[in-house]
């Protein structure tokens, strides 16, 4: 990935990824919601050696902005060969249970806006017969649990969408990489008590990039989550529904 569009560039995992890409001398088009924070990330990337850094502050929940955004990224970098889709919200499960509005925010941000963006991007990459689409999903999409099934559903739906996209784009030499981090120590999880399973954004970013370099399909980062989720997925539903997870 040499010319990369990063969506949700101010998220902790994206920032760590941007640093690694910058150190490799990539050209970057960074997109985030908060202009001041985005500017901090852009300056950091430029100082760390990115060949070029462009930025644009937009709210990705404005779907009408997606097509012009992708056009702008193509124009600014003179093409694109990589996308890191990292925007998302954790939401509040208790709130979501009480109100559809709260649920909708999670589904719009994590699933619908990703689908809208990937629709535009997949068509371009399919036409150019090259590129890597890296999407940050979550282990939470592997099985619905009472503690965060709204977030989990948004990621689970995303995973299925990506499977289909991968299947469609395989013949066009376009890689679709689903990255499933476990717990990551970020501002998004600052309120949660930490344990040994929490990984640093930098560790996740390294896993993400090596998966992108290897044009992998679905990866768990850190790898231990492949085992954990295998176990969680194997528990029979009759038993699972009575568990407190």
């Amino acid at each position, binding site marked *: 990935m040499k010319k990369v569009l990063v969506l949700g560039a101010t998220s902790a995992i994206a920032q760590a990824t941007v640093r690694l890409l910058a150190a490799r001398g990539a050209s970057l088009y960074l997109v985030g919601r908060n202009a001041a*924070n985005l500017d*901090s990330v852009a300056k950091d990337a430029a*100082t760390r050696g990115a060949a070029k850094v462009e930025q644009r502050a937009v709210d990705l929940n404005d779907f009408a902005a997606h097509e012009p955004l992708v056009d702008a990224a193509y124009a600014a970098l003179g093409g694109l060969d990589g996308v890191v889709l990292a925007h998302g919200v954790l939401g509040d499960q208790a709130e979501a249970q009480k109100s559809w509005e709260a649920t909708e925010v999670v589904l719009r941000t994590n699933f619908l806006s990703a689908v809208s963006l990937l629709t535009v991007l997949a068509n371009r990459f399919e036409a150019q017969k090259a590129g890597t689409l890296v999407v940050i999903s979550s282990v939470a999409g592997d099985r619905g649990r009472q503690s965060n099934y709204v977030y989990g559903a948004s990621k689970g739906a995303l995973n299925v969408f990506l499977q289909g996209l991968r299947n469609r784009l395989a013949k066009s030499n376009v890689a679709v990489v689903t990255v499933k981090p476990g717990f990551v120590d970020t501002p998004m999880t600052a309120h949660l008590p930490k344990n040994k399973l929490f990984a640093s954004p930098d560790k996740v970013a390294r896993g993400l990039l090596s998966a992108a370099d290897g044009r992998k399909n679905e990866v768990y980062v850190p790898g231990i989550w492949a085992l954990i989720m295998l176990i969680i997925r194997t528990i029979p539903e009759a038993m699972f529904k009575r568990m407190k997870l």
Partner: protein
Amino acid sequence: MKSLESWGRYPRVEQHTRPLVWRTDSLPRPDGTVLPHGLGRSYGDSCLNEGGTLLLTSGLDRLISFDAGTGVVRCEAGVTLDTLLRLAAPRGWFLPVTPGTKFVTVGGAIANDVHGKNHHRGGTFGRYVRRFELLRSDGSRRVCAPDENPDWYGATIGGLGLTGLVTWAEVQLKPISNPYVLQETVPFENLDGFLDVARASEADYEFTMAWVDCLAVGKNVGRGLLYRGNFAPPQFDGLPLKKSHLSHGSGLAVPMDMPAFCLNRLSVSAFNWLYYHRQNGKPKQRLTHYDPFFYPLDAIYGWNRIYGKRGFLQFQCVVPYSTARDALREILERSSRGGLPSFLSVLKTFGDIPSPGWMSFPRQGVTLAMDFANRGEKTWRLVEELDRLTREAGGAVYPAKDARMSPESFAAYFPRRAEFSGYIDPAFSSSFWRRVNPVTLPFSLESERGPTASQPQSLLAIR
């Protein structure tokens, strides 16, 4: 509340933590006081805030700009010196002043106005801080520079994190031709020998520092090895990095090779004897990479753990030349007679280059740093003695390495303390500051402890 300790592992105190993420965010306003916290490489309690909140600056780790032509770097305050070196060294720039570890933040280096092996040439870190932004709890932001808000600039450099949060800073780096240092090791037989060779080296060497065998007695008091060096000239440019440039060469590496159980008087003295004598009394020259030259201790991650759970007290003083000979002799003799081995003792000279920081520790004279395993009252009494000797010699003790100095000592060492107090942010405080200014204990802490709660463990308790 979390139980946290600093690098010396003493004291261990309860406090809240709040991670900071963006330099444009406003300060969190928790109950009680706050204190910025870098990488906790201060040894005592100057980076702790018992009962209050630590503002963790490690998230403020973004670079803002670097001009490879002028060597000016601007970055957020949580950026580490390690990050700056990785950025700058390959492009021909180096830190103008660096402490003995690169795992400190720019904010921490400013707040303690750190010094390196080149004080006689370069002064302190603060001299190279061209400007920074200070965020106060009232929401105000000030850009501080020698000619812009100069009073805030002077109060914040060496200001122990109490004047507000430094969000970003701009530092002037200095040019190097390559990453190598030409180093020479010169043995000296006693304190007089050190003073002679150190002063003689200052003219020709940018970097000097001496390891001292603090268990030597009698006529050998103060014997050791002086390391002096300069960045290698251009003929070494492009030299491929060899393993030997990264090691300490001939056999015995710096003391870290000693496992924890070895840490007793006998082994330390045997080690020191060997370390001293491997030199055969002759100067020795070698080429090293900057990493082992400046940061020998960083090679062993978490070396502070060898002192065990009770931690250790570090003592670093500076005494003026006029009293140095007698005072240091007395200090070294007391510690060697005290039966408590200092694992690593370092002597250095400070030049007369003034710092812009009002509360900066370095001043002209000789500085000695020692670590003492915390063996309770015995250790405390010894270190208190050393403190008294320093006071009598007209010297000062370094707050960044202190967990026990008295309010009286602090007042004696930092004559601009009263003026400085006027610049402290009302929402900021530290365990150290309350200890050395006991009357200013904030109300919330007092009520939290209640009248029956015990005093924090400190020198006050054993006096």
